């Protein structure tokens, strides 16, 4: 095991995959000599050269599309969007192109491309640099969506994503990059589509992922002091959803809270709750709840941003209201 940051874990995954697979190459803004604004591609240019660690102009729509073309003919591009918010500049290429080309071609082409981006708020970066887009990307058939919360998961899932052979949106969080954790040595991967129970508990199931997963674990500690044992599930993959792990847990606890930073409205919380009612209608002993960003753009001032984004204390309150 080595104790490294989330950013370093991603860097290792990229390095290791580039070493073993010459088809893997990277594109993005300032990922070369600068090593990426969040240092995820640090030093990779020294090892693999500027051809495979390729700086791009500020042309998201074009370089995502170029990734698609290169993927169609056999390469494995990993494309970095500096902020998830800029996915919208490239939305046509992601939604109308990458997600559908395999299906529309009757399975004759495939798009083994990973689009990496960091998202989320909590830093006062403002409404155009703080959004979370997994929910509406998950609405698009043809995209795999991954959102790890720990360094170990980040490394293992990035490897699986590069190997997946399909378009993967790999979601990082700007406030996770400096979080440290134990990461296994050597080659390992975490399967796509598999959630993990990050804390066992018998009283309530809290489902989350990415940064709010850490909030859920923090809240679970507080709740334990109050006599409530929460089971915390880290989804890790948003699409496809690992419903089995959720259903198993809810069968034991009878209570469910879904927490995410993306806007609550029409969000993943609603989706998971609907599926639990559809697939196991009698398991819940209390109406389930969801917690996400309130339905406004993300403001800058701390007092405002804290009011809009879910906080650990909000999780504690939401859980207590279910007992």
């Amino acid at each position, binding site marked *: 095991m080595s104790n490294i940051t989330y950013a370093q874990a991603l860097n290792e995954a990229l390095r290791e995959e580039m070493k073993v697979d010459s088809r893997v190459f990277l594109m993005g*803004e*300032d990922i070369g*000599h*600068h090593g990426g*604004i969040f240092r995820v591609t640090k030093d990779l240019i020294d090892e693999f050269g500027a051809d495979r660690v390729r*700086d*791009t*102009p*500020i*042309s998201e*729509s*074009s370089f995502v599309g170029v990734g698609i073309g290169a993927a169609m003919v056999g390469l494995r591009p990993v494309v970095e969007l500096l902020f998830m*918010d*800029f996915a919208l*500049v490239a939305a046509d290429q992601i939604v109308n192109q990458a997600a559908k080309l395999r299906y529309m071609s009757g399975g004759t082409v495939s798009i083994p491309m990973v689009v990496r981006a960091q998202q989320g708020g909590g*830093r*006062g*970066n*403002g*409404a*155009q*640099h703080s959004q979370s887009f997994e929910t509406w990307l998950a609405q698009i058939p043809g995209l795999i969506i991954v959102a790890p919360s720990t360094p170990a998961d980040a490394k293992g899932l990035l490897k699986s994503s590069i190997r997946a052979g399909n378009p993967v949106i790999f979601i990082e969080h700007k406030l996770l990059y400096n979080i440290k954790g134990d990461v296994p040595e050597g080659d390992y991967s975490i399967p796509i589509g598999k959630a993990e129970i990050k804390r066992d508990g018998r009283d309530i199931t809290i489902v989350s992922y990415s940064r709010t997963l850490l909030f859920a674990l923090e809240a679970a500690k507080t709740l334990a002091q109050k006599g409530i044992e929460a089971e915390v599930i880290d989804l890790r993959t948003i699409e496809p959803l690992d419903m089995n792990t959720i259903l198993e847990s809810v069968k034991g606890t009878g209570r469910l809270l879904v927490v995410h930073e993306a806007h609550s409205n029409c969000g993943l919380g609603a989706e998971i709750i609907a599926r639990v009612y559809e697939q196991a209608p009698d398991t819940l002993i209390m109406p389930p709840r969801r917690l996400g960003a*309130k*339905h*406004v*753009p993300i*403001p*800058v*001032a*701390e*007092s*405002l*941003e*804290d*009011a*809009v984004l879910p906080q650990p204390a909000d999780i504690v309150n939401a859980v207590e209201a279910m007992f």
Partner: protein
Amino acid sequence: MPLTPERLQDAYRQMLIIRKFEETIRSLYQQGKIRGSFHPCVGQEATAVGGCWALRKDDYLTCTYRGHGQAIAKGLNLQAAMAEMLGKETGCSKGKGGSMHFTDPSVGLLGANAIVAGGVPHAAGAALASQLQKKDNVAIAYFGEGAVNQGVFLESLNLAVIWKLPLILVCENNLYSEMSPSHETTSVVETYKRAAGFGFEAMQVDGNDIEAVYNAVEQAAARARAGGGPTYIEAMTYRLWGHMMGDPEIYRTKEEVAKAKENEPIVRCGKRLIELGCTDADLSRLDGEAEAIIAAALQFAESSSAPQPADAFTDVFI
């Protein structure tokens, strides 16, 4: 209205106000009083003041995350700007927008934008509205040279020409886009040549010479008001500080920055004023005035209150 020697003194003070605004923010940032990102415009004050002062209050402006200078030069209230930086309820956007989104339609400022090239079509739209309403006000959009590789930018160039919009595009070419030297990412790095290819009246000017910027924008505005269509001005300048706070600046040498300092717009404007008969005492008086204005803005901002959490839920719709 020409930039007379008297007005040039005011413009010099305006540039100093902008410089001191940014210096104050840097120090607040270092004290941990400012959240989020801050993209200083230090070294680029002449493009801001030269361009905005050549226009009327009812002309429209869009700019970028590096747009504090333009916003202030166009007339944004300094106290409201400072309060916005500190996330206060008295800020120009009540703490909702922050550093990258200064907005004040009462002075024609339709907004700074954090999406590269995002504001360019908005200026074109404001110009279209002016044309449709048979008004004679014009729109100006500021952007960096990195924006010229965005699809929406190129699409807007074409629209502006075919619709003959009263639009002035000012490219602040400071040689770098974030940490990338722009000649590595841009096919025709003299961006005005691209615009000329689209049919723009297009030129390059010395962006650190406030009079050159002023004259170019004034002529462009006169042409636009007379129905002569859009103009593209590439103002060559230099960003003296990093792209943002915390930029390690590994992409350029200290010598390069030191050399650029010799050519920076405030020093140059000071020399020009001396040529025109000002004394050193005049210049330090202007400096003192700028200092006092910034101190008052800071005092106002620091004594303002943070917004209430409930304020987060207003202003979504009218």
